[in-house]
């Protein structure tokens, strides 16, 4: 028995070592949506361990096992993700995680930007974080940042010329009738984006905006969506999200840009909208006026509606945008500027300084 014990484990170690290389180098993990480190990326001994961990056979299954074990040990916070009820996963952001300094800086950058270029309508939309609306689905007492205080701070800080759009009351109402956020992903649903659109752009009341969103004509483009939060914890519970898209009206010109069907066959299905995040995207719509949209990925599923409302939309994702903003502002003749970020993303984003670049 002693020999067996020794031989078995030594065998497993040898087998594990061989199988890391026998299974061939993998370059990309769909699940984690990132490139894996390969042998050729080793430049010093400190890289070896991360390469081996990335190349380990059945990587996803091991990760899944680790999460299942944590879950079985009553853990409801796994890899910075809260495991909520009813299949909801939440990206953890406690008061301590919330980047208050960056948040204040970003609000100041917006003020500067609004001062520098006078635009008739200037909206700042800070989309509520999922748990701000779905607090009932959080694990009991899970620490999250104080959203009230953050909206209040934004209200106090932003110039009078800037309208802070607070969607909390709209979504509180919407969540009674339909899904506002995906269960397995950090984004909002298309219906939530539509309700926000009706409220902000069309100036509807909360009740009307919600009613419109519930009754909106949409098609389900996939019901096999496993989002970013699923990838982080890999708890296999059979829960998928469905992605809905507006029913495309025949007159819409730019549907090639608005939707990327090929993305529905990949892991990163939310990239169906706009094909992912691009530094600058210009879209010709069917409405009137020019809109500048400064945004994170939350806006992507709202753009189809905006395209019906405006003649031309310039979309900036500041993470990837490095052109001269002053020139863009002077030549763009924008009737409206909309800055749209999810609240915790906004507090984390270190690129808003680009708005004040001359």
């Amino acid at each position, binding site marked *: 028995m002693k020999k067996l014990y020794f031989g078995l484990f030594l065998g497993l*170690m040898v087998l594990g*070592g061989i199988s890391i290389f026998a299974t061939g180098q993998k370059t990309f993990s769909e699940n984690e949506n990132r490139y894996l480190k390969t042998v050729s990326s080793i430049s010093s001994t400190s890289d*070896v361990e991360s390469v081996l961990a990335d190349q380990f056979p059945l990587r996803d299954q091991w990760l899944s096992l680790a999460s299942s074990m944590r879950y079985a040990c009553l853990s409801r916070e796994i890899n910075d993700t809260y495991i909520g009820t009813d299949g909801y996963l939440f990206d953890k952001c406690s008061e*301590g995680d919330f980047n208050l300094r960056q948040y204040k800086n970003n609000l100041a950058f917006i003020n500067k930007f609004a001062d520098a270029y006078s635009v008739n309508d200037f909206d700042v939309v800070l989309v509520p974080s999922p748990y701000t609306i779905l607090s009932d689905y959080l694990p009991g007492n899970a620490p999250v940042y104080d959203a009230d205080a953050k909206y209040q701070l934004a209200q106090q800080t932003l110039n009078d010329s800037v309208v802070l759009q607070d969607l909390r009351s709209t979504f509180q109402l919407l969540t009674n009738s339909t899904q506002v956020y995906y269960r397995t992903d950090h984004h909002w649903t298309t219906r939530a984006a539509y309700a926000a659109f009706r409220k902000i752009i069309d100036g509807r009341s909360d009740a009307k905006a919600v009613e419109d969103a519930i009754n909106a004509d949409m098609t389900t483009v996939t019901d096999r969506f496993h989002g970013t939060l699923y990838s982080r914890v890999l708890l296999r519970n059979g829960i998928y999200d469905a992605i809905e898209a507006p029913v495309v009206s025949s007159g819409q010109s730019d549907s090639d840009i608005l939707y990327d069907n090929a993305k529905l066959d990949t892991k990163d299905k939310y990239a169906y909208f706009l094909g992912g995040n691009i530094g600058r995207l210009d879209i010709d719509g069917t409405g009137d006026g020019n809109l500048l949209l400064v945004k994170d990925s939350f806006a992507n599923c709202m753009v189809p509606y905006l395209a019906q409302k405006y003649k031309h939309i310039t979309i900036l994702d500041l993470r990837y945008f490095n052109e001269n903003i002053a020139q863009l502002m002077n030549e763009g003749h924008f009737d409206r500027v909309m800055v749209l970020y999810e609240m915790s993303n906004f507090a984390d984003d270190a690129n808003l300084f680009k708005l004040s670049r001359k």
Partner: protein
Amino acid sequence: MVFSSITFLFFFLPLTLIVYYICPGALKNIWLLLASLVFYAFGEPLYILLLLGSICINYASGVLIEHMRQKSSAAGMKLVLIISLILNLGALAVFKYLDLGIALASSIAQLFGQTGFMAVGLALPIGISFFTFQGLSYVIDVYRGKVGVQRNPLYFGMYIALFPQLIAGPIVRYSDVETEINHRTITADMLGDGMERFILGLCKKILIANICGEMVASIQANSSTVCLAWLSAIAYMLQIYFDFSGYSDMAIGIGLMMGFHFPENFLHPYEATSITEFWNRWHVTLSSFFKEYVYIPLGGNRKGVARQVFNLFIVWVLTGLWHGAGANFIAWGIYYFIFLVLEKFVLKRFCANWPRILKHLYTLFVVLIGWVLFSNTTWDGLVAQLSAMFGIGASLFNGASAFYGMEYALLLVVFAFFATSYPKKWYQKLPSPIRLFLGLLGFGLSVALLINGSYNPFLYFRF
């Protein structure tokens, strides 16, 4: 390289073992030396020179001391010993304590209105405290005539660099393995027991210590309450035990698989009923090193009470310093000095009739507060944690406390139970197939957590 890594588990260890078993007798030691140097160089490409330097100096010291002995030159022997001590401790001082000394000198200079000095910022070579002490044990014992001189430099190098205990102990004295360096046998029982010990140590490290470490980190990221402060202190107390003892288990296990019997290092320290007993159970090889090479040479308890207290003071300041170059570590050492002296001269009579449970609680409380001292490198951090623990300016409970209580309290109770000697007793009564199954389960879960975790911190790099 650390044991709890894929590199070690699936490449270094199996390869080293297999080649080791294939190697004929005399080559085994040379292979072990090579493997150990690779092991060290993997994490510290530059400081390998320091390790080689330590080997050379201590090897030469041993040979020279023996040479002086042949010439019956007591003065010569002493001179070589002193030079060797200066070189060994000098290297330790430069690489580990230089910046502490500079900081001290700066604050003194500033007291007199002078400008301070710049810190040098040398990175601490991993394991320097361990291999320096191993070298010292050899040189001093050769001087005392307790062990024979090792004339084969490769064999001696193998002893100093031996990878299982190189970076986190136990501190294996030359006398512990003197015969096994030259000749050792490996039985099937040793192979099986060694592997089992290794796997259990791995589980302690990854499945318990790392998870406790995560608890500490995520609790500390939150605003503190009395409950959270205690929860975090307890999690740290368990983390440091399972981390360190798990590492010792792995070292002892690997040693067994290669024919070495390393000394035990942890004897369920949290079961102790006094601080004196705690230190007979915690990091045993370190305590006995200081006893053998500092306390007794200073006169121990043979020169009166005042001298004994002074000797204890020296030992505990050194013990504190050994754990790290920082005021918190010195304070931690002196803290234990106070309790040990109190126990020796006051409490011994006073608590003799206490119920056992009270003695346990007293010991655990003192040790827990000790770890709070140990883990806070800044004064502000220490004050913050202690005041939170004792309710000064912190509320008793809040939402986050409830959440982390639910998350961790039950696991911590289970882990605390694993720190007692009961699980071991029960485990040893289990039939072997069940033990094998448990080993496989633990190994599998450990690998899962290793792959999951970039989170694999190792507490002992500071030593």
